[in-house]
């Protein structure tokens, strides 16, 4: 790989295609039409191999448009978390805020009970509000709204813990909720900030995930967050240690398409297969590390890396993790199970960043026949 070219192109303007123009003008109608056939076309294809029952596993990876449910990660282990919700509609919405605490334990569940606190909140048109996870103040309280559905936020002890927040629409305009969260690491002096994730109503059926990592500015710690939950009602979700998602198979060709294995690749395209891994709402299985080279930011001592046997060379600058969904477990076979992932990278000393997992675009319905030229 030692060839390169620098080119200068002289190109003439080409007008946009008719389809592009039409798509731009009637896209909402297309959305509506697509949504009408969504239950027939999409949902049946989303069953994951190995997943019993009729459940589906929609990806929660819509971070670009308004949604009816937002999922945030929070962390207070020497960190502060702020999460923001905005109502972009022109009418009032009522939302159900649920906070799940992975770090909470009981005698029966020493590895995490995933306790929940929740309340309803109200947002008028164009309203926005920032919650501090350790000093919860409802928007109703902050804005002194008189709405009968207004509640004060609870005051749980969420210190030195971590988990996720779900905010679901109870009433009001659809697809008007957007959100982001900021996790400020005290010792590290860095910030994780990214848009909260919502359910993609187009029904993304991709089951492969791509997690880029690199050593830009000395990144050597990670937070590989996997959130899995059941939707028990349109405005309520449920998470527990026994509701989980598993990645990677045990056997066969790593890329055979039927039982692919988790892989980690370095910058030289050297891939190492890794054992199956899973995520649930329990300590150690909610926020993992990438491998021995890039362990978890807060639980380096825990043996909870995606690739426990992998140690990349110190001279390696970049790589990526391939995470194919294998199966999921759930409590109620009648309920849908959802998954969202966030990946944080930091150097433990001043810089870091977080974003959602990347899913692999699935082109099975329109396979490309183009063969690239040999180099």
């Amino acid at each position: 790989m030692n060839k390169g070219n620098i080119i200068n192109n002289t190109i003439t303007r080409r007008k946009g295609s008719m389809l592009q123009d039409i798509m731009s003008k009637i896209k909402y109608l297309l959305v509506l039409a697509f949504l009408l056939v969504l239950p027939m076309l999409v949902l049946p294809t989303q069953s994951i191999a190995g997943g019993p029952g009729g459940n589906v596993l929609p990806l929660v990876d819509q971070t670009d448009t308004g949604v009816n449910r937002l999922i945030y990660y929070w962390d207070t282990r020497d960190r502060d978390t702020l999460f923001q919700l905005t109502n972009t509609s022109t009418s009032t919405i009522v939302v159900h805020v649920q906070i799940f605490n992975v770090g909470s334990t009981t005698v029966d569940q020493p590895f995490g009970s995933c306790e929940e606190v929740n309340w309803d909140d109200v947002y008028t048109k164009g309203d926005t509000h920032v919650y501090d996870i350790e000093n919860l103040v409802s928007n109703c309280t902050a804005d002194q709204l008189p709405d009968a559905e207004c509640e004060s936020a609870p005051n749980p002890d969420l210190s030195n813990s971590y988990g996720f927040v779900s905010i679901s629409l109870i009433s009001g305009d659809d697809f008007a909720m957007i959100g982001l969260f900021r996790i400020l690491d005290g010792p590290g002096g860095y910030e994780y900030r990214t848009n909260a994730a919502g359910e993609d109503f187009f029904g993304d059926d991709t089951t492969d995930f791509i997690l880029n990592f690199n050593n830009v500015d000395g990144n050597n710690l990670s937070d590989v967050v996997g959130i899995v939950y059941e939707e028990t009602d349109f405005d309520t979700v449920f998470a527990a240690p026994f509701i989980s998602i598993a990645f990677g198979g045990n056997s066969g060709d790593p890329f055979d398409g039927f039982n692919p294995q988790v892989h980690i690749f370095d910058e030289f395209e050297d891939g190492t297969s890794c054992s199956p891994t899973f995520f649930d709402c329990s300590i150690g299985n909610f926020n993992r590390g990438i491998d021995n080279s890039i362990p978890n930011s807060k639980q380096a001592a825990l043996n909870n890396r995606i690739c426990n046997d992998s140690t990349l060379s110190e001279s390696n600058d970049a790589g990526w993790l391939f995470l194919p969904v294998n199966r999921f477990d759930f409590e109620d076979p009648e309920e849908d199970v959802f998954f969202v992932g966030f990946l944080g990278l930091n150097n433990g000393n001043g810089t870091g960043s977080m974003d959602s997992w990347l899913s692999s675009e699935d082109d099975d319905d329109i396979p490309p026949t183009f063969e690239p030229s040999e180099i």
Partner: protein
Amino acid sequence: MISKLRFSLIAVIMLVLLGFGFQNQAQAQVGTDGLFCPAVPDTTGWLEVNVEAAPALPFPDFSGALIGSVDSLIGGPLHGGMDWQHVDFTSFFSPTPTNETGSQIVSWWTQKDGRNTSLQVTNAIGNQTPDAGTWVHVHIFDENCVEIRNFCDFYTEFDTHVYNFGDIISNLGVDEADANLQGKEGFVTVTAVDNCPTPGQAVEHDYLAGNTFVKSVASSDYMYGFATYHREGVCFDITTTTTVNLVLNGSFQNGLNFSPWLTNQGNASGVNSASISDGTVPIPAASGPDAANPNSNLFMGFAVSSVVDTSGIYGGGPFTELARPQLVTGLQVPGEFQTNVTVVTSNIFVTDESKTLFYDLSFLSPEVDIVPCENYAVVCVIDDTTGVANFEACRCYNSVGQGNAPSGGQCTLATNDGDTYSVVGGGGNFMFDGGRSGFFQNEQLSINNPGTYAVQFITGQMGDVACTDNTVVNNNTGAFVDNFRVLDTVEETLFCDGILDGSDNAFLDVIVPNVFAGQFDAQNGSAGADVVHINFYDEYLPSYTPQAAYINAVVGIWNDVEKFTSCGELPVCFVRLGIDEALILSDNFVGPTTAPTLGPTTAPPTLGPTSTPTNRPSGGSGSCAIAGNPVQLGTAFANVLIPLVPVAFVFGIRAMRRRKK
């Protein structure tokens, strides 16, 4: 005194009304002081940018916006974060473009003000394709939307590489020239192409995964990190059904030269109203694809039988086996003949089912005869399926309504109007003293079986003595014909082979939202901010290149007590600005000097603007930005109403989900 008080009262009322009237208007021009919303003090809220077309400027195929801020909430060094702004809609093909791989990566880059950008690109081939290395073409644009660097690179399967914009080494190991990038910023695209540099056409290769990291090392140590935008390559086969006319140039839309009609004998051509003494207007095409051609209303066919150019009996045109002395029968005794026959034949066409020929005809009569000569016009469908032609169907027209067409059937009486016509066409200027019949419209001849056919229109004169002696001149006889059509449907498939050439079935996904929404929050009362807009359109041929494009950004801001303020508008290709007086451009932000306090308080909200720290910036980035005008109240209303549009369209979804439960 009363009068003065009254005047004062009126003045006060006027001032109050003016205050209300302008409360939603722009505080200052967008871009002033490097801010989207100058003179607005909001610390928590969201920036709303409505996308409109910028007059006389190219509209983008991609429009994206980032929002990030820098702060020191934890009391130490600065820290920051950034992500793409929310939009009302992305695309039908790639609804989550910042969270899924694609064929093109789009990102902001900056080497300005002590920042350094790193872009990681992965050829994240999954388990779908066994061999999927790909060329990519990297295009780097500056803040003026001018391309300042491009280079080729190659990624093998599972490959990943980080471009450090401070010292760009390609994945191929080439040290790319980057000196002209330093101290600048703009946007970058990484596009999968078939080969590089040529042909350099974009391809569908939806496995590129990108992440951008912008590190600040100037005043403090912080970093923005975010996944890039990923545009999907849209590539599929289209099968379309179109209606065609098997009779080519059936409405003579090709003009005076009526090819592919062929004059086999006699005199004929295309004519228009200028060719005819009374300006007779051709009949507009009633239906079929020819009707879409405006020329179909301007021209028609013309045939004439004249003693000027003797052409003899009907020779059958290309179907010589059909030649005969009497084409129209029943008017002459055996041995007599017809003469000066003009024959015009269409293209030969094939149909796989029974069809109907439609046409319009106007008969041009000879002078009203003392001794009637039953001169005629004929239209025939010739069946040449077996190679031995025969008349499938014919219809004849004359002034007496007598005689029979060659396929049978009595001739139609074509009553003339008695006027005199002069027609320039068919190679001469022909007089018709007997006048003209009206147009017989939508005349029909049946084609009963699949096969090979042609259409002929014919004129002829009686050749018997009574019509050709010295006392009776066998006058010109002709016909105007128009709108021949045998309609058929054909299926055409437009294939996509993976090359994205911008056609209807092969292009990079178009991502241009109607509204951007960027949330912000300055817990300490002030912060630095970077709001970046990127716009470009796709130029596909001969090789793929992004080109500068513009939106007219109509900017407003909502604060945490739901107060909306319009901020103005400006045309934008690339721009980086701060948000408002509280979240100034990050270049000018030095951080708080007091200990921060996290989170909201229960204090009553403050309505209206309040005084805030003012770190007056020296200006923003984005030479593409053209200063806009203060926004009007109408724009403010639009800002409120436009978000209703997507909500209205997708309103049923929630109910659908509930019913599922």
